[in-house]
């Protein structure tokens, strides 16, 4: 089996005349944490959403464990949308965690985690709930199983969202600014869950503003600016000099805020 979990090839994404992603080629290694960093509007979230086919790329391809995602090319090289069943099959290897949690408000924490186990995986109610409870326990929320999202803190909601994604046993987890909507004191509990997941060897792609997390947990860092991938490499290399001037400028804004101790 190849060591590449996700392969992004010459990806271009345009909204009208604006180019959001400009010819991105990137390999996401299996079993490691890859972080996408960059200023707001650099295209890092769009790139991550393309990896889940929540955004459709204008050109280029994405392969999940070698299988095309979203589009396939026919014999003549023409691009076509993948059949819905095939898309669902490939997508089932991916778990996604959103900035806004996106828990279903009319279901309890347990219901959120169990829903797809029942409806998609076809487990019985009791099997699904037992499995869901095990996942909630893993993120430390077994005593909040009966709570509705509106009764949970942001950090707790995000941990439920992580449990919901993990319950479906994905091979790859995508995190889209998972802590950006949280108060600083709630950020830690979510980062801890993510750190634990990384230690278990989960393949993770993390879009984050938490440079400290990226530096200490990430094994690959990619820096995007204005839709272009300017740098990909191990964190040590990113923080060592000489480096790309735009990246340096970006990191300086963090160092100014006292993050120098991390480097």
């Amino acid at each position, binding site marked *: 089996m190849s060591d590449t979990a996700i392969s992004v090839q010459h990806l271009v994404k345009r909204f009208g005349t604006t180019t959001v992603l400009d010819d991105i080629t990137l390999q996401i290694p299996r079993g490691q944490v890859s972080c996408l960093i960059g200023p707001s509007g650099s295209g890092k979230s769009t790139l991550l959403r393309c990896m889940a086919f929540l955004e459709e790329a204008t050109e280029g391809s994405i392969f999940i464990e070698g299988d095309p995602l979203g589009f396939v090319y026919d014999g003549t090289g023409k691009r076509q949308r993948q059949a819905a069943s095939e898309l669902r099959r490939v997508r089932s290897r991916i778990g996604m965690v959103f900035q806004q949690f*996106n828990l279903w*408000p*009319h279901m309890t924490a347990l219901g959120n985690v169990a829903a797809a186990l029942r409806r998609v995986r076809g487990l019985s109610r009791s099997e699904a709930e037992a499995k869901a409870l095990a996942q909630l326990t893993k993120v430390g929320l077994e005593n909040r199983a009966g709570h*509705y999202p509106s009764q949970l803190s942001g950090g707790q909601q995000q941990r439920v969202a992580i449990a919901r994604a993990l319950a479906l046993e994905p091979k790859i987890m995508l995190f889209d600014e998972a802590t950006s909507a949280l108060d600083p004191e709630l950020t830690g509990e979510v980062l801890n869950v993510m750190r634990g997941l990384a230690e278990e060897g989960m393949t993770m792609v993390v879009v984050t503003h938490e440079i400290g997390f990226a530096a200490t947990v990430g094994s690959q860092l990619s820096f995007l600016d204005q839709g272009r991938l300017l740098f990909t490499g191990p964190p040590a290399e990113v923080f060592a000099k000489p480096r790309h001037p735009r990246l340096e400028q970006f990191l300086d804004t963090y160092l100014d805020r006292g993050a120098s101790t991390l480097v």
Partner: protein
Amino acid sequence: MSWKLFSLLLEASLMTIFVSTISILIGLVLAILLSAANLSGIRPLQWGGKFFISFFRGTPLLVQLLLLYNLLPVMGIQMPSLATAILGLSLCTAAYQAENLRGGFEGVPRGLVESADMAGFSPAQTFFHIRVPIALRLTLPALINEAILILKASSLVSVVGLVELTRMAQNLVASTFMPLELYASAGLIYLVINLTVAVLGRQLEQRLPGAPAK
């Protein structure tokens, strides 16, 4: 006015409540199907739905009922007045409820649908397990309002030969010559029914988990 007369009105009000409740429920199911047609992305279904809504919102209920009452026999369909009344009210309220629901469906956050996609839900599963429950919660106040409107509009179904509260009052007036007492009593009964619906609706709004996110 004697208790005897008032109890006749109360009895007739049961028919009003029955016809309205059944019609609102059938109308809700039809409205959800109309919403599904609108969201399906299939053009003929969308046009069909739009035509249905335009027709039933754009013509008076009284005309619809009279048309239905005269059209069915021409088509060779024999229906008791109760069924005709329910059919007429259901079709009309379906159009209004579909319009109410449209706002609710548009208010379902995109992220909740995306998380359903990522969980592997089929479009139908996403519709019934995510979109519908959230849209219903968002439109609950409008749906309660529609229920009250239908309870009052049900006074029109007497034209298809059904004796409900209003028609019973008219009949009693014809034989007792006590219009003030009887119509005031009928109005009072409508008021009590609708206040009850409003209070129950308010309680339902507060007790439903995960009601509209602020």
